């Protein structure tokens, strides 16, 4: 909502600026109809928006001006100088109010009335002089935000990317030449500055995904009304940030997926009732950050994808042969929704599942380096997960070599790196193709050297297990694996992209160009298809599932004390930097304030003195805590062998990762120790308080709210779980309450039948209110 108001204020400010010339012209020539219309439109727009935002003063002013201007337009009044200046005074006041709202200052309202009455027919003040509006006092806070064109941001980003590369090259030349300590120190300083600028500019390009999500309720409402369905939309994770450009790129695919979910997934109310489901379909759209990726999940509880029909359609369309279709696992069948050719509207109407342009959705997401996975249960719904990198321009990558040349592979697609010919992975030739068996799981193998048409080296080859879109893992044999690098990736020229193997180009630290490989492009060039991949993948599914079950995806990081730690990735909601001031020792523990919430802070002994603190935001699904850390090291998927600590605590144990001792956090203990007690799920119980009692409002209300109640004012027709009343007075009438709690002002009991509670007997109050809550929960 705050964002909307800010948008409205910024827009109004822009309109006012644009209008200033018009106002001046209208003042000079009041009979100018075009100018009058323009001003009318402005006050009309402002009036409309104010009603929506509940800004009564602005609404009153714009409404009054609109009325007068409507009269002038209809010819009921002449636009004399007095009227013109009265209107202008109102418009100036609107501008002042907008500024006051932006800076959060109060603006006296007394003379609003005067301005409005000046619009009236009789001169309220003798010939209200076109008194110039008081110039805004100098002391007012400056606007804290400006609007920039994305083009400019892009240019800044490109400039900084170039600066980073130039810095890298300079660094290399410095290392090559004679050592000069003073020069190196200066270079270090420059280097640090450039790094900071890059971080800052990367942040300016970040936008909350809310800006995408705010349009959803309306879209869902319109679409469900059009289709005669009932849909309940749940949106979560709006505070996740991602690159503006990325945001634009996922807008269409996301819209498409949601349209599909409502159109094909969620059944009409009658059908749902017959299936024993809630009449209103549930559509959940949630975003969260996991490492360097953003996950956007769209889940519905509709009828699910009809795998059989999909396969029939795919066979008819010639995408798979009937024999191959026989061998497809359910997951492969679902993946057919992304196959091109199943997508034209005419064909799809025959299918009860989905498929409208899903190939386009996948193509769009893959183009920005993302992947989309689908999961469906017949009769229970469909879950689509879009995974996209945080930004388009800087991506973490692994450098590998083939035929003596370095290439980069996006980190997001890499599952695992293995040495060829060891116990873990062995490669067999099957006809003309190769299959790698990795811990009982068979995947097709492509050789990067063959793909590129270069000569391979024979020794010490490595296998990189890749998982591009659609769930088709495959192995890629490379000559060597080098390093993890953060690369500034730029698009490659069309003649290079024509190879179908590359996603872009980048420059290494030494200034040489490096080609970034495209994992799904390579799979395509290697000729891997759903069906072939599937035949190979069926080898030992149980074994693979078993191996996968034992593996944990871990985020490796360095704690603030320098210790090497790891935390399971699913627990990490996102990573965030906060200024040191956001961390405070308050109400008995360290807490950190983020945008609009306060989270308990762990992993940090005392508030940082200055600078900023990096945080892991951990979630257990309901509660969230923050964990301070120094730097992210890596994300690894491994089967853990934990050595437990002597006493239960923050750490679940110590594990050996890459020969180093890594302390693995125990999320269960962390949440038990740090998380704020979760509110009971569902609607909070309601407590009705008599109106107008300051003691109730100021003293009792916070206590009741802290116990998880929603407090309402007692009155006619109010429904509540608990009603609070004074023992001395009458209980407020007309309240339908589950129980009534009488409070008395005197400490001593008044007679034997007095079941009231002394109002400062905190223990008894809490006990009584907790009982009410427990009752409510038992009933529910």
């Amino acid at each position, binding site marked *: 909502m705050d964002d909307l108001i800010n948008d409205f204020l910024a827009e109004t400010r822009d309109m006012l600026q644009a209008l200033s010339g018009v106002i001046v012209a209208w003042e000079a020539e009041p009979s100018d109809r075009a100018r009058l219309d323009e001003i009318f439109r402005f006050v009309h727009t402002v009036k409309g928006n104010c009603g929506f935002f509940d800004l009564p003063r602005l609404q009153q002013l714009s409404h009054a001006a609109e009325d007068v201007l409507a009269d002038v337009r209809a010819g009921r009044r002449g636009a004399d100088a007095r009227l013109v200046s009265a209107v202008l005074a109102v418009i100036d006041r609107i501008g002042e109010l907008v500024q006051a709202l932006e800076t959060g200052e109060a603006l006296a309202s007394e003379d609003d009335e005067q301005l409005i009455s000046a619009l009236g027919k009789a001169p309220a003040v003798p010939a209200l002089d076109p008194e110039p509006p008081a110039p805004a006092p100098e002391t007012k806070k400056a606007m804290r935000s400006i609007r920039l064109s994305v083009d400019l941001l892009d240019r800044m980003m490109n400039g900084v990317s170039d600066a980073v590369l130039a810095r890298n090259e300079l660094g290399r030349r410095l290392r090559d030449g004679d050592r000069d300590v003073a020069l190196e120190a200066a270079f270090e300083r420059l280097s640090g500055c450039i790094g900071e600028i890059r971080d800052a500019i990367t942040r300016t390009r970040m936008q909350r995904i809310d800006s995408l999500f705010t349009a959803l309720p309306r879209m869902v409402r319109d679409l469900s009304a059009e289709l005669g369905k009932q849909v309940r939309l749940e949106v979560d994770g709006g505070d996740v940030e991602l690159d503006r450009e990325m945001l634009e790129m996922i807008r269409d695919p996301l819209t498409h997926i949601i349209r599909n979910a409502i159109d094909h997934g969620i059944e009409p109310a009658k059908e749902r009732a017959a299936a024993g489901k809630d009449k209103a379909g549930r559509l959940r759209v949630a975003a969260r950050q996991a490492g360097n990726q953003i996950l956007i999940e769209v889940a519905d509880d509709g009828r699910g994808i009809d795998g059989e029909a999909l396969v029939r359609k795919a066979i008819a369309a010639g995408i798979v042969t009937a024999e191959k279709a026989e061998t497809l696992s359910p997951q492969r069948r679902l993946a057919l929704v992304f196959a091109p050719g199943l997508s034209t509207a005419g064909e799809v109407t025959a299918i009860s599942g989905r498929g409208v342009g899903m190939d386009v959705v996948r193509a769009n997401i893959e183009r920005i380096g993302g992947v989309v996975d689908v999961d469906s249960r017949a009769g229970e719904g469909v879950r689509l997960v879009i995974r996209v990198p945080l930004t388009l321009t800087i991506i973490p990558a692994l450098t590998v070599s083939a035929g003596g040349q370095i290439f980069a592979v996006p980190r997001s697609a890499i599952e695992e790196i293995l040495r060829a010919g060891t116990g873990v992975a062995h490669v067999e030739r099957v006809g003309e193709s190769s299959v790698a068996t990795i811990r009982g799981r068979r995947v097709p193998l492509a050789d990067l050297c063959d793909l590129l048409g270069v000569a391979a080296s024979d020794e010490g080859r490595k296998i990189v297990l890749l998982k591009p879109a659609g769930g088709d893992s495959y192995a890629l044999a490379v000559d060597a694996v080098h390093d993890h690098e953060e690369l500034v990736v730029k*698009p490659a020229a069309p003649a290079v992209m024509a190879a179908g193997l590359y996603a872009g180009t980048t420059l290494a630290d030494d200034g040489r*160009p490096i080609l970034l490989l495209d994992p799904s492009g390579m799979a395509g060039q290697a000729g891997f298809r759903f069906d072939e991949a599937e035949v190979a993948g069926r080898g030992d599914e149980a074994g693979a599932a078993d191996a996968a079950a034992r593996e944990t995806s871990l985020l490796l990081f360095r704690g603030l004390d320098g210790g090497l730690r790891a935390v399971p990735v699913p627990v990490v909601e996102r990573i965030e930097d906060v200024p040191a001031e956001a961390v405070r020792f308050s109400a008995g523990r360290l807490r950190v304030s983020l945008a609009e919430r306060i989270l308990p802070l762990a992993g940090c002994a005392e508030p940082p003195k200055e600078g900023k603190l990096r945080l892991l935001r951990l979630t257990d699904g309901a509660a969230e805590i923050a964990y301070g850390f120094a730097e992210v090291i890596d994300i690894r998927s491994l089967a853990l062998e934990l050595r437990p600590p002597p006493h239960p605590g923050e750490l679940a144990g110590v594990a050996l990762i890459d020969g180093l001792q890594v302390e693995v956090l125990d999320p269960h203990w962390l949440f038990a120790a740090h998380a704020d007690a979760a509110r009971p799920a569902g609607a909070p119980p309601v407590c009705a308080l008599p109106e107008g009692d300051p003691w109730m409002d100021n003293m009792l209300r916070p206590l009741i709210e802290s116990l998880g109640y929603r407090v309402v004012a007692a009155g006619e027709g109010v429904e509540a779980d608990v009603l609070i009343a004074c023992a001395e007075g009458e209980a407020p009438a007309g309240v339908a309450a589950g129980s009534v709690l009488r409070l008395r002002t005197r400490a001593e009991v008044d007679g034997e039948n007095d079941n009231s509670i002394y109002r400062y007997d905190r223990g008894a109050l809490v006990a009584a209110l907790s009982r009410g809550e427990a009752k409510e929960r038992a009933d529910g």
Partner: protein
Amino acid sequence: MADLLLIVRLAGRRVALPAADVEGVVELEGITAAPRAAPHVAGLSALRSRVLTVIDGLASLEFGRAGAGGPLEAIVVPSGGHTYAILVEAVEDVVEAARTPVAVRAPVGAGWERVAAGMVEAGGDLLLLVDPHALIAGPPTARAA
């Protein structure tokens, strides 16, 4: 004002390119191969912090490939949002066109036909005017790929 022309030596001939299309002339430090890219792409190179896609002028004319080694003279041409370096045998001079280019009325020969934009008189010689963007686009087979 007369158009400026850049005179280069390509496939053994002196040809002219509109100087307005050319950002600069560089000697490339090295070329990183781009395996499986279109045949007229020699690879990638770096100019300051930019990646250049190196176009083999000879290959683009389908006259074979530029020999490896030796100085790598190239002209830098931005085209379609990317920056290219077109390998040439030598860069000679920048001259003013004596008059506006005219169409060539005779066949200019295989390879040249596709990149020729006319002929132009400069410095007392009559030269073939080559469209650098056509050189970048490469032979039709590459474009179809």
